[in-house]
């Protein structure tokens, strides 16, 4: 017995009759679906993990002196490099400004000052450069986490970032000479702690830095009552905009004196970059679907040409044109559907491996934003199949039954 839809049954049997050919054609779709889905998932996972990382900073603001250009996106402190004593009054936050900020922020959270300088350092005989931060000892304790050792108490002790520690082989008790011996005296400090990795942040980039007390910093570089940056931590994320606007309104009343930055711009920019890249790579993956479409088209044309006589029989015993059309569209649809389903299963496996390899974490793999690429790629794959099948099907349905019956 056959189901009521004998046309569908005929399509399915035709696919089964030419099993190898059908499998090969469907394989093209499988590959196309897998490449689109896994690349899409990779991009989504990248975006999700970066966004997650950045959202840790969503409650933070950095206030730097207004430099006219609006400041770079990654306007980290001390990025200027250059001479050690060249701090211009215009490029710093003054004590008065900090007091103002502190007053505004008091209600919502805390504000603390950051002094920083990029300078030459020497460990044993090895030379290098690092950012030196000067922070209030209580703030160091509050903001940073020491992985090994303790927090600096005196002006002679510092903590270092993990990347720097690894690069210069620094251990607890190691001695660092800060400053260029050719330009003047150097200051020797002792490492008392190594920090936890902090990754990409915009408030303090400590992984490659030396962090000491503010007294140590002013001891080396001077600059009493001047700060490179003020960091603000807001307790309630909802108040972030209020605080940002309040600081800007107060300090930039007469003229622009400070630049306030939050993390959203950075998040936006990174997300945008990743998604542009992903779209581009997905477009390349789309070419594989195009190749698959050509092979489906070829198989469908073969199927039509082989079955001209059969089409003639079907037409002569009363099968409508639309039904012949349907029969071949079904055939393409079956190939597409089988390809898409196998492709979906394969993309879950391959996508997982790709994400693990490229993003490093599969934490977000099963998030909706990532998995959505599987059905998306399936729909694209199946749709391409059906669209490709339209022309061969149309040709089949428009055959003249008399001519078709004469075919061998």
């Amino acid at each position, binding site marked *: 017995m*056959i189901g009521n839809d004998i046309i569908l049954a005929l399509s399915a*049997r*035709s696919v089964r009759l030419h099993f190898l050919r059908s499998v090969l054609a469907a394989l093209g779709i499988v590959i196309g679906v897998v490449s689109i889905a896994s690349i899409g998932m990779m991009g989504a996972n990248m975006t999700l993990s970066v966004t997650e990382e950045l959202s840790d900073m969503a409650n933070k603001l950095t206030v730097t002196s207004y430099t006219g250009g609006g400041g770079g996106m990654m306007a980290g402190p001390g990025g200027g490099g250059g001479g050690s004593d060249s701090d211009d009054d215009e490029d710093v936050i003054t004590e008065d400004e900090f007091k103002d900020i502190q007053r505004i922020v008091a209600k919502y959270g805390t504000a603390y000052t950051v002094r920083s300088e990029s300078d030459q350092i020497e460990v044993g005989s090895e030379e290098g450069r690092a950012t030196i931060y000067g922070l209030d000892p209580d703030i160091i304790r509050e903001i940073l986490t020491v992985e090994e050792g303790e927090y600096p108490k005196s002006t002679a002790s510092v903590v270092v970032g993990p990347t720097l520690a690894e690069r210069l082989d620094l251990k607890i008790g190691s001695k660092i000479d800060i400053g260029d011996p050719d330009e003047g005296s150097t200051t020797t400090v002792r490492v008392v702690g190594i920090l936890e990795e902090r990754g990409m942040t915009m408030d303090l980039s400590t992984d490659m830095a030396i962090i000491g007390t503010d007294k140590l910093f002013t001891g080396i570089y001077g600059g009493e009552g001047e700060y490179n940056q003020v960091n603000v931590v807001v307790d309630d994320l909802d108040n972030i905009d209020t605080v940002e606007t309040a600081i800007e309104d107060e300090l930039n009343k007469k003229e622009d004196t400070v630049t306030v930055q939050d993390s959203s711009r950075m998040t936006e920019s990174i997300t945008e970059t990743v998604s542009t890249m992903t779209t581009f790579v997905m477009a390349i993956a789309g070419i594989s679907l195009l190749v698959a479409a050509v092979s489906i088209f070829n198989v469908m044309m073969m199927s039509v040409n082989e079955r001209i006589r*059969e089409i003639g*029989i079907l037409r002569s*015993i009363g099968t409508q*044109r639309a039904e012949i059309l349907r029969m071949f569209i079904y055939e393409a649809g079956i190939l597409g559907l089988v390809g898409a389903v196998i492709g979906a299963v394969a993309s879950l496996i391959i996508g997982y491996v790709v994400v693990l390899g490229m993003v490093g974490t599969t934490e977000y793999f099963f998030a909706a934003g990532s998995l959505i690429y599987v059905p998306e790629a399936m729909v694209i794959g199946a749709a391409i199949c059906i669209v490709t099948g339209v022309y061969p099907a149309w040709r089949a349905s428009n055959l003249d039954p008399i001519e078709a019956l004469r075919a061998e």
Partner: protein
Amino acid sequence: MSSPVIELDDVTKVYPLPAGDVVALNGISLSIDEGEFVAIMGPSGSGKSTLLNQIGCLDRPTSGNFFLDGKNIREMDDRELTDLRLSSIGYIFQKFNLIPLLSAYENVEYPYIMKYRKNDDTGRVRDLLALVGIDESLSTHKPNELSGGQQQRIAIARALVNDPAILLCDEPTGNLDTQTGAQIMEVLSDLHRKGRTVIMVTHESEIAAYAERTIVIRDGRVA
């Protein structure tokens, strides 16, 4: 038993070709009554096949009128002609023309499903297979697993499934040996005796002898 089921009135069929028009049917008029068994004969190139295509509703006349069961074919579009082929004509071909993807049973059932949009639950397909002498054990076989005679019997059953006004046979024994051909002719004669209208195109006079009336076509006209 006397109303005409087929009526051709001055039917012309012209095939326009670059080298000049070919007149395949040149003003042919004939009438076949219900219940008749008619053989159409003629040498090749006489317009026999063209006439068959007209009667089989695969083609429309260039001019003149063709009535099948009282309906004028000339005014019909492809859709209506296809419906007519499904319901009013039972086509039996020289090369059997079963659908290779379907079993014997399914081949017979196919036009029924096309017409009624459902499987046969009346036992009609089974009865027809029995009528033409196909064992139930053979009904699950695909056409390529069956002999020519068996295939032609199945084709006859298929032609009958929608209870058509005419059975149209195109050289029904042309691909069969004499003995099997005779058996098939017995089946057709039997159907005629039961009241079927049978129209048969053949070039063999022994086969034409089974019919009550023979129409000879020559140069696109009734000779």
